[in-house]
């Protein structure tokens, strides 16, 4: 292969990247800082979600998130798959955010475990069984689908049903900021 053919190869590859089915990667190749969240903010009439909950003694009970909303100024749903980053986020939320907001309900949404028992095992092995956070086992993917959640997604819903946040936890600064404004 000649020198010119080498660069032809590179050109073909780049053409493939930019011109074919890889358009989704343009967000990485040319990152944008444009704020497109305006349409994402929404107000609901409630969560309309009832879900199995694994309580800390291991028994299953049903929970109605709308009922939970009536008990708090807001609820925080954190989507976990029990991975290193998830646990890092959860650690920070539990240790640094929760103590400052006793009027807010905090929930870990397990959207990956196939049963309440395996979810409970993950909760215990992660050290959260006595952390004061409530585990929601999203067996029917109700919460995941309703809020388009995935690993690290953090949702804040106020008592009126307004979704104040629906994005990755990151460093927790945005979460704290939003909760401070309640």
């Amino acid at each position, binding site marked *: 292969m000649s020198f010119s053919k080498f660069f032809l190869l590179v050109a073909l590859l780049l053409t493939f990247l930019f011109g074919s089915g890889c358009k989704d*990667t343009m967000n*990485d190749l040319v990152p944008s800082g444009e704020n497109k969240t305006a349409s994402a903010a929404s107000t609901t009439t409630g969560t309309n979600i009832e879900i199995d909950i694994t309580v800390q003694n291991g028994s299953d009970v049903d929970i109605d998130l709308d009922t939970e909303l009536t008990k708090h100024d807001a609820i925080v749903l954190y989507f976990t798959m*029990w991975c*290193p980053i998830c646990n890092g986020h959860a650690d920070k939320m539990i240790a640094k955010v929760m103590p400052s907001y006793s009027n807010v309900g905090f929930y870990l949404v397990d959207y990956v475990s196939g049963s309440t028992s395996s979810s409970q095992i993950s909760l215990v092995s992660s050290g959260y069984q006595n952390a004061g956070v409530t585990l929601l086992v999203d067996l029917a993917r109700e919460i995941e689908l309703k809020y388009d959640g995935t690993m690290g997604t953090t949702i804040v819903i106020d008592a009126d049903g307004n979704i104040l946040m629906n994005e990755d936890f*990151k460093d927790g600064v945005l979460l704290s900021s939003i909760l401070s404004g309640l």
Partner: protein
Amino acid sequence: MTHPELGQQEATYLSKKEMKKLIILFLLSLNTGNIYAASCCGGSGGGSVTIPKFMPQVAKVGLSQETYDGFWNQKGEVLADPTGSNLTQTRFEFAYAKRLTPNLQANLSASWVKNDNVYSGVQSHTQGLGDTKLGLLYENFDNITCVNEITRPEDWQPANYYGLNLTLPTGLSPYDDVDSSFDITGRGFYALEATALVEKTVYPYTVSLNGGYTLYKARMINQETGNYVTPYKKQLGDRFSIGLTLSYTWFLDSLDQATLNLSQSKFSEDAAKINGATDPDTDLAKQSQGLSLGYATMDQSWVVTLGLNAALKQTGAGKNFPITNTTSLGLTHVFH
């Protein structure tokens, strides 16, 4: 699990994002690692796209499969994946290097990544292009440094390489329109890596030591796994990697060569920054061990490599990172 921050799985340097990322990832690009057993002499190290001295070009295709087996948490403790998890990333890899001058090589590597993940109740099967890497490699030596025996001081001269690699975020990252963190094939950041390698072969033994330092370019993010978010600036932490490889080469009756490579590698990455503030729980680390066997034809035109890279499931061998094992198969052709 495809590491959501790393994408295509990471480079464990002597055996490769990956990857990560990852790579983790990318996971972390052709993150199959470099085992430079007598690379300047056309040896049969696995994964390398280094052109042997005086040769004009080299091309490689490879297939690797990475399986996930738990992870290290932030304290370095080993935790298992949820029951029923089965996480695999398969990568078809291509690499090419072209000699530009007697001492300078240019190289390109890319990969196609296929994710097959069952993570408790979630199944994901996706594929796509991984991150792409372009590089320059300078050979700080003018003649082949491999010797059969040491008879004079000059025989101790090693082969020194200095490299510069640019990673293009051509894979699907968490910041693209993907459905979940399982779908990613890249890390989403431009990266510039400086590498250095010193290698000495006194047949049948080769020892090489390599190191790398990677800087990631900060970027704006306004989307995560398909959801628009309040825009913010993120910069991954600097990454340092180091690896040691010991090799033994057999010369067969046919004059073909077989080489066994043993490697130990380690990398660490500083915590990321979000809007300029350090996110203290995002630093990463991993140690791994590699074993590979290469077979090279007499004229060293063709090299076949079979490799295994594994991480020990022990406390302190990693931090905030998945535990993975990678098997790889590669075919390299050196053009004469």
